[in-house]
């Protein structure tokens, strides 16, 4: 599909409290366009709670309920059950949470809601960090990325593969997308909207202040995350995985991935791997780990 086919309607209102260059609002615009006004959104503690702007005003033209950090999927379960009881089956319930609220504190409620076959879309906008609290490590933060409570060496552990945890729930639809591919994201949300049962979509959302890159580079950082294989675009449907876009070409080895260094060199969170002296060993370790993940992807999904 072409960008032109994406509807003009906006349910995100300009002049919010989001940082300039924010990937979350970029993604929200697409989500709102794909689902339309017949949706109710549940938001746990995350940047979006700030983006909404100050009471008594809001920047969202969609009914939105804020809920506690770990409770997005549970709150959405309640909304969904109540709508079903009222016969309002045409309303899409969306939980919209960050990676902290998904990978870490919210994973229990999320897993429960998926297991209960809750008819909703859970969307995780993943900026690989607790941005809202001032950039602390999360389960989604990649190895060696620095955060505000770290030593200079950065995180000492690899990130979780949330997508694979989700697949273990055998839900009807899950997908990974990225803000840099809006048509792909739009299509995935649209598809999820039409499927009954639990749907999970995770959106790679490079965060300028969190990753320490220039605010004009959000889209570029997203594209590079896919081109280097740091992030994969795929759909999971009826227990089958289909990689798509550039990720498909990478999986099938029709193109070579860009070196991971091409992505991380623009990010201040990896600055200590380049200054004062390039840390070749650690860069190689990151590259090897990425290669290993793709090797496993090929074994499992090709």
């Amino acid at each position, binding site marked *: 599909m072409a960008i032109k086919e994406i509807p003009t309607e906006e349910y995100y209102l300009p002049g919010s409290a989001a940082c300039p260059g924010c990937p979350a609002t970029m993604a929200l615009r697409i989500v709102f366009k794909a689902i339309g006004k017949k949706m109710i959104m549940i938001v746990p503690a995350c940047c979006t709670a*700030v983006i*909404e702007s100050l009471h008594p005003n809001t920047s969202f033209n969609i*009914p939105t*309920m804020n*809920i*506690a950090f770990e409770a997005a999927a*549970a*709150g959405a*379960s*309640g909304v969904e059950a109540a709508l079903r009881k009222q016969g309002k089956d045409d309303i899409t319930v969306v939980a919209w949470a960050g990676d902290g609220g998904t990978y870490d504190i919210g994973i229990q409620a999320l897993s429960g809601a998926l297991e209960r076959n809750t008819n909703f879309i859970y969307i995780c906008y993943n900026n690989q960090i607790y941005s809202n609290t001032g950039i602390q490590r999360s389960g989604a933060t990649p190895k060696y990325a620095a955060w505000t409570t770290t030593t200079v060496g950065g995180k000492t552990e690899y990130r979780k593969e949330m997508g694979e945890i989700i697949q273990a729930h055998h839900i009807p639809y899950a997908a990974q997308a990225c803000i840099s591919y809006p048509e792909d994201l739009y299509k995935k949300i649209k598809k999820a909207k039409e499927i009954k049962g639990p749907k999970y979509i995770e959106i790679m959302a490079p965060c300028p202040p969190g990753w320490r890159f220039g605010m004009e580079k959000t889209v570029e950082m997203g594209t590079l995350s896919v081109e280097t294989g740091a992030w994969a675009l795929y759909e999971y449907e009826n227990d089958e995985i289909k990689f798509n876009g550039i990720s498909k070409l990478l999986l099938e080895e029709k193109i070579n991935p860009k070196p991971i260094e091409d992505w991380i060199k623009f990010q201040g969170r990896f600055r200590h791997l380049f200054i004062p002296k390039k840390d070749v060993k650690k860069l190689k370790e990151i590259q090897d780990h990425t290669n290993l993940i793709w090797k496993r992807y090929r074994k499992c999904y090709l």
Partner: protein
Amino acid sequence: MNNVMIDTGNYIAAKAAVMTQPDVVAAYPITPQTTLVEGIAKYHETGEFKGEYICVESEHSAMAACIGASATGVRTFTGTSSHGLLLMHEMLHWAALARLPVIMCNINRVVGPGWNIWADENDSISQRDTGWIQFYCSSNQEIFDTIIQSFKLGEHEKVSLPVMINYNAFILSHTSMPVHIPTQKEINDFLPKRKPLWNLDINNPITFGNIILPPEYEKVRKEMQESQENAKKLIKEISKEWKNKFGRYHGDLLELYECEDAEYILLSMGAIGAESKVAINNLRKKGLKIGLARVRTFRPFPKEEILKISKNSDLIVIDRNISIGMEGALFSEIKASLYGKSDSKVYGFISGLGGKDVTFQDIEKMCEKVINGKANDLEWYGLEGV
């Protein structure tokens, strides 16, 4: 005229909850609440309960799901106990601040460690400041009646706050008693459909719960306080209406028993409250002028009513809880209610913690200790080996 059901407190609570026709119930099992949710599940299976039943994966999620459901404008119910209630703590605040009338039974149980499933009120007492209305029941009939009344109270536009109906583990939750059950029509006539003060609505896309600045937040708190004050008046009206319709009355904020000429008034809550009546009868037989004021609502706290009964009486308080570092919570609240306005003496006992039995003989002994001038301001009653 009425149907009589002989069953345990939990099954009676399940019956009451189902008869209010809630749209959504979300619950997680915990001893001694389990038979309550099993009861509701059974009614769900038979079709007597027509709402949605969500078997969540934790109490935190149970309350979060009730909040989500309630925010769409429907009627919600849940039940928990002890550690379950404590896990909900964050969401208890959330429900109250959101002004959502989630109705919940809490079966008062000891907080661990070590593991202990008997009666103790520290679980709900420690949720005192969440904004929830708290009832404490002393019989299965009172559990039934209070649940129905709580929906009317909590959902009332002048209140719009969640309500917690507390009753003691096993002493009530697992003890069978005969209970009069009104007809579904009688309950429907008594309990109107919920009219929410706000709700999530695609035709009115508000955002609930975003960032709020101090001056506005303070106003939210003040209106919650005013709503609890409104509840005081409404609890009286609703109890009276219930009495007129069904001929049963368990008191309103307080239940007064033999208080008219009393020189001493005993104050207690929950199951100890019921046992206290037996003690009062026996003490009266001995010629002692003593009455009972059973505290039914811990929030809103009946401070005016307690001040009133203190005019000619000294007060004896039994707490099945303790605010460590201070004293029994009921004892503290009662003294605060009298401060500067009454010369009555107030004596406090801590008794029955960890689910230890508090019998009418125990209660008589506590009262006699006070009347004989042998009690200190704060006593631990029946502490073994001390």
